[in-house]
């Protein structure tokens, strides 16, 4: 890439708004928040063809949004090809110090970390699980090396962000192993995080869910008890990422799960209702309450619970799992269910984001 002449006054605040970070970033971000991924593809293609991207980092950020959009639209091969066009993430082309006229004394990689993440997760979607796992584990090593390097140079803010990325990749790995039912690996990875003082009540709860999944009820109860203790010992200045409402709902949902697995659906419903009272947008509570009603032989009310949530809080309730559940209920409740499913499908087409997988209605 050539070095265009610098246009930014180095004395102004370069980080005041999104548009300071990259050309029309606020607009890209807004489209992404709305789930308008097709519009993002258009915008990126427009910016590229009109040569609006002045700097190397602009190209990379636009490429990131493009790759992400392709991924969201389930065009995984296209996304993979675009990533491959970069050839080597670690190339000097993508380093700040290669362009001192633009970035002055800044050094290091200008590759947005998302690209590395998407690069690791894409193979799973392309049916190449082993490649995906290899990339994730290599990425983990890469991150840990970065943490060491930044630590040596006392770059505290960088260390913080790379540690966050380490936790992120570990969570991705746990998810992939969980999807493949490799439960013992998941338990080991979570144990590792907890043993290194990463005490996140949500993670401990998820450990409990996995223990429930495999049938280790005693272990699960132990984990949930631990989460309750964490709630009770919580201090006001707790830097945990959870708000009071979120924490309490987490504890209720954990209790509900124990009741549900023990077939005490009435008590499970009661716990979920407490969650919904505190936060009507707690979609896990809504969805799971509906399922409990079904197991209580109340198919009509289970349908109503799901339909109500779609009406009242569509942007949180509209997820593929909830819709699959609702359609299963329709199929059971109505001999001629195609009409009601079509009504639902039409409504979804009007309000859903571009990345919503409409095949979930099985219409």
């Amino acid at each position, binding site marked *: 890439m050539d070095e265009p002449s610098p246009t930014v006054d180095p004395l102004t605040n*370069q*980080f*005041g708004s*999104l548009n300071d*970070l990259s050309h029309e970033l606020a607009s890209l*971000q807004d489209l*992404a928040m*709305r789930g308008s991924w097709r519009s993002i593809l258009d915008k990126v293609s427009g910016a590229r063809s009109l040569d609006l991207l002045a700097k190397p980092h602009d190209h990379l950020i636009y490429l990131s949004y493009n790759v992400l959009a392709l991924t*969201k639209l389930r065009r995984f091969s296209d996304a993979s090809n675009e990533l491959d066009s970069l050839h080597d993430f670690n190339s000097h082309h993508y380093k*700040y110090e290669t362009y001192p006229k633009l970035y002055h004394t*800044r050094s*290091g990689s200008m590759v*947005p*970390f*998302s690209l590395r993440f998407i690069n690791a*997760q894409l193979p*799973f979607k392309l049916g190449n699980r082993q490649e995906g796992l290899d990339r994730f584990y290599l990425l983990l090593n890469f991150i840990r090396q970065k943490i060491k390097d930044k630590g040596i*140079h006392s770059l*505290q*803010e*960088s260390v913080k*962000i790379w540690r966050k*990325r380490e*936790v*992120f990749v570990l*969570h*991705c790995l746990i*998810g992939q192993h*969980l*999807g493949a*039912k490799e*439960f013992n690996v998941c*338990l080991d990875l979570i*144990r590792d995080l*907890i*043993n290194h003082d990463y005490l996140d009540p*949500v*993670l401990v709860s*998820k450990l409990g*869910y996995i*223990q429930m*999944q*495999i*049938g*280790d*009820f005693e272990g699960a109860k132990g*984990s949930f008890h631990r989460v309750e203790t964490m709630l009770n010992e919580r201090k006001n200045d707790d830097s945990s*990422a959870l708000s009071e409402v979120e924490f309490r709902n987490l504890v209720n949902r954990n209790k509900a799960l124990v009741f549900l697995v023990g077939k005490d659906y009435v008590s499970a419903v009661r716990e979920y209702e407490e969650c919904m009272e505190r936060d009507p947008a707690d*979609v*896990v509570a809504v*969805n*799971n309450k509906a399922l409990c009603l079904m*197991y209580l032989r*109340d198919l009509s009310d289970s349908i109503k619970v799901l339909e109500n949530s779609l009406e009242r809080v569509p*942007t*949180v309730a509209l997820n593929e*799992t909830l819709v699959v*559940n609702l359609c299963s209920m329709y199929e*059971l*409740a109505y001999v001629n269910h195609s009409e009601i499913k079509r009504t639902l499908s039409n409504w979804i087409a009007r309000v859903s984001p571009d990345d919503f997988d409409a095949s979930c209605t099985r219409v």
Partner: protein
Amino acid sequence: MSTTQQGTHSLAFRVMRLCKPSFHVEPPFRLDPADLFVGEDIFDDPLAAANLPPLLSSQLTKSMDSSDLTYGNRFLLHHPSDAMGFSGLLLLPQSFGAIYLGETFCSYISINNNSNFEVRDIIIKAEIQTERQRILLLDTSKSPVESVRAGGRYDFIVEHDVKELGAHTLVCTALYNDNDGERKYLPQFFKFVVANPLSVRTKVRTVKETTYLEACIENHTKSNLYMDQVEFEPAPHWSATVLKADELHPADNSSTGEIFKPPILIRSGGGIHNYLYQLKLASPDSAQMKVEGTNILGKLQITWRTNLGEPGRLQTQQILGTPISRKEIELQILEIPSLINLDKSFLVHLNLTNHTDRELGPFEVQLSQNSAHEEKKVMINGLQTMVLPQVEAFGSTDFHLSLIATKLGVQRISGITVSDTTEKKTYDPLPDVEIFVESD
């Protein structure tokens, strides 16, 4: 799949298998703004390190605002563990799935009135038919459902512990008065097949007074099995202890303590797990207990859990030990010299015991030829047959056999056989014994 009779019906049965729901797991493509808006090393720049965090956190707060009606929750990470794609959302069973012996079959049954008229006096029955029997699950004959309005439903849930293999049919029938007052009969059939979830292979070995039972459990199902309990129930007069290998990971989890008990999970589709039991007869001097014929050791009780603790239980048939034959004569080697030299004779100390209540003998002791008729490397030195006098009832006699080894290294003393010359009976030879032959 269901099959119904001909003719139009106002009612129709809808059936859904109601095993436990499952957790939805799907790692998403959700990001942290710091990983998208800027280069990964930008925080090395002190200017960025100071000014970026406020900008980034304001972006996140925007996405978490519940009044924000966007789909940001599908794009940005709200909480670090969102990356796992495991929120706790449960999914209804999406297919009938496989049913295995020992599980509980549970089903939601809905009878719909899809006509435009009310239907009255409905007698509903649900039963399971197998090759061997019919099991009634539901019968509203005593109190028929008064009516189901047009477009209405009557729902019920049935459960049945599966105790037979092979073809099963869930038969749902409704006897009702339709709008014309005609009494109609609607049968619907839902077929499924029950398979064997596991197989158990056993091996029994006896070492002196102790019997060891090795049980290998193989999982034939499509899910992982959490082995809740695998217990051996010994037969009368036997006691059993389970033997476990040392744990691979010592208890090092000071902070996690009680959370981690390594679960026994048998992988789906062919995974195995072995169990070892040590069995002892209740009374050690149990000569009276050694009854001729087969030897019942006991049976295994197996309980397992699959998805979200869905339980299953099975019992094996009686497991047999090695048949005990009553020994009349017992020949044993008491002592072999520790140093055996090539071509130099050595004495082996033996004992012959008479376990019967009558005098037996006289006996002859020889080294029998092995089936290959190879020349033996260890032979009797001197007369090839040693004669022993009679042994009284419950008595024993000690004697020495002089042997000589003709080859160096590890050799076998094989085929020491005793025969009763009066009863013309030859007993089984002693098992081979290894010796080490050294040069002078």
